[in-house]
């Protein structure tokens, strides 16, 4: 192959001017900062109402050479473990069935977050002007590409080794079917990449990563191990080794704007909006996946939340910034209520619409029910009795023709979807911090579950126009929608989602769903 003139020129230049090999990486990092930008002419496609300082530092002082070496060691260790020891130990098939189903959601939805974080950190690279700050964001951009691959690999690995691969095999095409998808897009996509650049950094780095990756990516590994899954800790603990730099990036975003008068004016509102946006989805969804998607429990979700979100993030990140005017999020009290109850509210709805899932769910067992009542006093009277009724009506058995969604209709428990978060809620059954409020705008009705989302919508209604699943499928019969959106296994008739995880239990088919004659209805129509 011919060597280009440019390659020849570069080779000649390096021969004359050899790059130093004995200089420490952090000395190189310092030297690199001299290659600076002309700040006066610095233009960004992604502006912010804040002024980001030009002298913001990078806490980990990374250069490309050490970054690449470090990340390659992480990958060698992770893939080495997966492809050698864990495969020989048949680790993918030793996972408790309920947990294997949970990982269909966790790995696939996290993949979407990582994918959007690529764009978010690239956007921040463009917005910032301090070279070290740019360097930190650039490293993150590359990390997020790695994480996207890692999450995809978890699904791929389980698809090969888990006893029921349906859902792991085709999560990308079927994940849009159920109501959990659009809420996930709100936190993991819109929250990270839409609007003011600094607001996106607060969503992604200061709240999403510094606050919620600890339960989502660290604590999840304890639940995984307890449920026989050593695949997830191998991958997720490796992902999180990059997250600490992302948390530092978020903190340095705040450092960069700390002395801008705009921070005093806007930062607390942006922080509260970001906190509520992220918690509104993560709090119930993670709690539901951990507690209802596991056989063996580690600790009540509310304790995990209290430790990582309230005590650590609230005290060590937000509390310490108090003297710079950063306040405790005004929505914290409602978030705490959600951390106690909202995941129980959500599972009730998630189980009711189980046919729209790309994963299997299971009713709480007697052992689970005792655990829930011991840790959430009042659980049985509010939720446990409903599950007993559903079980007695044969909700797990296709021959019963009973889908719990019908129970909501029979008992006039209307289900709405919050316009801002896209999280479903049932006002007459909720114990979390949700209550119904409805607005009309441009001839269209919008339901809201809380004052925090309502406030965000009132200030920017055009931002939250996402059509919810009830509007999208209104008037259509459930089995038609499932078939259209690939919610079936390779035989073309058996649903991927099932209302049980037992190997002996009968599997529901499209015909079973059709017999139930469930038709989607928009409660606001």
């Amino acid at each position: 192959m011919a060597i280009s003139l440019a390659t020849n020129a570069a080779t000649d230049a390096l021969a004359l001017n050899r790059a130093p090999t004995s200089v420490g990486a952090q000395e190189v990092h310092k030297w690199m900062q001299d290659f600076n930008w002309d700040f006066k002419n610095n233009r960004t496609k992604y502006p912010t109402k804040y002024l980001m300082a030009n002298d913001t530092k990078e806490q980990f002082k990374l250069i490309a050479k050490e970054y690449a070496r470090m990340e390659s060691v992480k990958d060698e260790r992770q893939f080495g473990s997966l492809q050698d020891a864990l495969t020989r130990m048949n680790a993918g098939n030793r996972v408790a069935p309920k947990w294997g189903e949970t990982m269909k959601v966790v790995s696939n939805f996290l993949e979407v977050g990582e994918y959007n974080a690529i764009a978010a950190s690239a956007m921040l690279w463009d917005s910032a002007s301090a070279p070290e700050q740019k360097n930190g964001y650039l490293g993150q951009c590359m990390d997020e590409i790695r994480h996207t691959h890692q999450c995809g690999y978890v699904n791929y690995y389980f698809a090969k080794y888990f006893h029921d691969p349906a859902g792991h095999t085709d999560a990308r095409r079927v994940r849009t079917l159920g109501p959990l998808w659009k809420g996930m897009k709100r936190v993991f996509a819109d929250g990270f990449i839409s609007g003011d650049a600094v607001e996106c950094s607060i969503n992604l780095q200061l709240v999403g990563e510094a606050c919620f990756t600890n339960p989502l990516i660290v604590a999840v590994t304890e639940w995984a191990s307890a449920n026989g899954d050593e695949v997830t800790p191998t991958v997720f603990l490796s992902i999180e080794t990059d997250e600490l730099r992302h948390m530092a990036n978020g903190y340095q975003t705040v450092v960069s704007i700390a002395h801008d008068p705009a921070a005093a004016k806007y930062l607390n509102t942006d922080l509260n909006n970001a906190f509520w946006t992220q918690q509104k989805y993560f709090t119930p969804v993670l709690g539901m996946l951990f507690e209802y998607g596991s056989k063996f429990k580690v600790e009540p979700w509310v304790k995990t939340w209290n430790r990582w979100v309230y005590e650590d993030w609230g005290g060590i990140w937000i509390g310490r910034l108090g003297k710079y005017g950063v306040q405790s999020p005004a929505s914290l009290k409602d978030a705490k209520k959600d951390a106690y109850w909202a995941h129980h509210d959500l599972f009730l709805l998630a189980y009711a619409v189980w046919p729209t899932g790309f994963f299997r769910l299971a009713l709480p067992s007697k052992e689970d029910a005792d655990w829930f009542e011991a840790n959430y006093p009042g659980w049985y009277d509010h939720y446990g009795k409903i599950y007993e009724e559903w079980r007695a009506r044969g909700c797990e058995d296709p021959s019963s023709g009973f889908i719990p969604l019908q129970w909501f209709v029979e008992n006039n428990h209307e289900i709405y979807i919050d316009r801002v978060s896209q999280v479903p809620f049932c006002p007459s059954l909720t114990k979390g911090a949700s209550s119904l409020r409805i607005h009309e705008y441009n001839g269209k009705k919008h339901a809201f579950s809380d004052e925090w989302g309502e406030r965000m919508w009132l200030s920017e209604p055009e931002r939250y126009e996402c059509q919810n699943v009830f509007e999208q499928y209104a008037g259509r019969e459930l089995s038609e929608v499932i078939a259209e959106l690939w919610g079936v296994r390779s035989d073309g008739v058996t649903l991927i989602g099932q209302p049980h995880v037992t190997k002996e239990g009968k599997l529901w088919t499209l015909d079973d769903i059709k017999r139930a004659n469930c038709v989607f209805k928009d409660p606001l129509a």
Partner: protein
Amino acid sequence: MSTVKDNSYDAGIMSLNGKDFADEYFKEENQVCKESNTVVLVLKKSDEMDFIVDEMLVKIFQKKNPSLVIQDRGGYWWLKADNSIEIDCEYASDILGKPYSIYDLLVDVTSTVGRAYTFGNTFTITSELMGLDVKLQDVAA
């Protein structure tokens, strides 16, 4: 200074269960963030990290900072301490018997709550507000 008991994984309200936990959790005074001068570090278990935890953090650093708590959480070590935790990779290299830089350490540092940074071959996580109250330093070129 906090005691080991204050900083443990199940300290304070976390030691309570059922209604006792709920009563404390929903108390009005617990509905706002409270400033904390602690830091949390999560270290992924590995050949090197297990050695660093045993030989440096337990045997040496804990004597300097008795508030340090280290707990085994399955796949990772969970650490919490008042003020700061430091790991000197020059010393780690000596006891591991092989070159071990700050970037080798970062391969297995899984998560942080607090301001973490590197300076030369030392990793620090601190409750100080680096970049605001305290300037982040560069190594001498």
